[in-house]
């Protein structure tokens, strides 16, 4: 999930962003993603950044 060699989740990784967004374009909760808490938080931040840059929609 992270950029190799770092612990940074990149908001430009659009396939990843789409993978962790539900059909209704909401961030998938942790009981779906099974991600560790730290990663889930970074992922959420990344998706929010991607939304701000109009790479991922806010709503369907």
């Amino acid at each position: 999930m992270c950029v190799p060699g770092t612990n940074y989740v990149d908001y430009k990784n659009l396939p990843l962003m789409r993978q962790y967004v539900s059909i209704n374009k909401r961030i998938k909760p942790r009981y779906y993603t099974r991600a560790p808490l730290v990663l889930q938080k970074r992922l959420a931040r990344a998706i929010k950044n991607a939304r701000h840059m109009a790479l991922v929609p806010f709503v369907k």
Partner: protein
Amino acid sequence: MHDGSSLCYSPPVPILNSRIMPTKTDTTVDHDAETSESEVIRYELMVIVTPDVTQADYEKHVEEIKKLLGAHNSKIGHTEDWGKRDLAYSIKKKEHGYYYVFDFEMDPSEVPELNKQLRITPFVLRYLIVKLPENYTPQKYDLETPVRPEYKPEAMATEGAKRQNYSRPGSGATHKPRPVAHTKPMPLPAKETVPKVEPPPAKPKEDLSKLDEKLEELLSGGDDLNL
């Protein structure tokens, strides 16, 4: 009077401060000095330029942003031109935008000023400044897939199917994702039913003619019966 009272009150404040955190203030000042002198942080700036401009103007605008970054004593490293892309939602009633990504190193104290100037810049629809980790290497991602696949019903159906098959390797026997109604691919059944409906186009005509005959018979018969 008022000034006098404030003067009276003013002495305790610095004393309190010095009592509570004399060492702390000293250390922070030192730290700031260090950062302003030596420490440089990696940042990444992504800019969406308005789609109204021509290609030449767009390149000019990019140069302007590079100059702006240079004016803040930053070293520009890797840059990436994403070109014209669909926006996921309209911004200022615009559906497209030119995306450009700059990686640069900059003093953290300069960032607020850069932020301010980018916000005022007229041709910038939106921008984002992000801190990068030190050992980050620029990645290439698949940017070609459309931002809004929901416009195409076929893509939607396949996406839904993918979602249903999707399972993480970690999700074994202990926890399974809760079954939710909306994860089922809705358009698929409709697709299947469409070809089934198509085959019998000839039959209804015969049926109609037969029906007409029957109706006539019935009507005529009915008339007889009534009379």
